[in-house]
């Protein structure tokens, strides 16, 4: 399991709502954030939520951290080129 801090998101965005997903940050999240029964897993123990959150990030980041396949580089080159020719 790839534990430990993940690098911050590529666009630097880090919504408050995901604070509970971060390791070591789970005590910051209190029930006052969310109405009971409505919010993000209010009935689950924060440790369980944190554990699940880390796993979701791990599954997602596995793809996120892959290098961009060549097909997309070529595609964007082509789109940019077409645009220039069309101008």
């Amino acid at each position, binding site marked *: *399991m790839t534990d430990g801090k993940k690098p911050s*998101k*590529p*666009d630097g*965005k*880090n*919504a*408050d*709502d*995901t604070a509970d*997903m971060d390791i070591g940050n789970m005590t910051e999240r209190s029930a006052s954030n*969310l109405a009971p029964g*409505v*919010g*993000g*897993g*209010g*009935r*689950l*123990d924060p*440790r*369980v*939520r944190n*554990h*699940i*959150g880390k*796993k*979701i*990030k*791990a*599954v*997602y*980041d*596995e*793809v*996120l*951290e*892959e290098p*961009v*396949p060549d*097909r*997309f*580089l070529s*595609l*964007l*080159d082509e*789109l*940019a*080129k077409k*645009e*220039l020719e069309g101008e």
Partner: protein
Amino acid sequence: MTVSDNLREQFLAVVPNLRAFAMSLTGRPDRADDLVQETLVKAWANFSSFQEGTNLRAWMFTILRNQFYSEMRKNGREIQDVDGVHSARLATHPEQQGHLDFADFRTALATLPDDQREALILIGASGFSYEEAAAISGVAVGTVKSRVSRARTRLHEMLDVESETDFGPDRTSEAVYATLAAAKS
């Protein structure tokens, strides 16, 4: 730098995010990348409708999601292929094979109802706010919140997290789980 070079760079920066999101929707690397390709073409063609100063990533996620569901409706295909998820991902990432736990989690995630998985990924992995996720999915903020909540609860049930040793030798969490288990019985 020309306008189209600039646009190219901006789009390129979003590609990893789009691929990860597409993978969570389709569960298949080949289909995920086809979806990303269609999204890039569409977003490029419709860039004039993007409002400067708003979130480009959220805008492209919306396009990708709409594209995915419109194809689903057209083709009537199953949304997630759980076996496909499993074999495809394990095949591309043999280093993960030792981690049954990780594979189990991936499968559990794939068996979530699509709306719940989508909400959980947008909030818990893509880093969108509830408001942004609501806009991407075209639902109310409260709906996203309850989907995320249900998704977490369901994953918890499926994986029986309480019995896992994954927490490591952490006395505090062991104590917490002992208390939880006692409270349940």
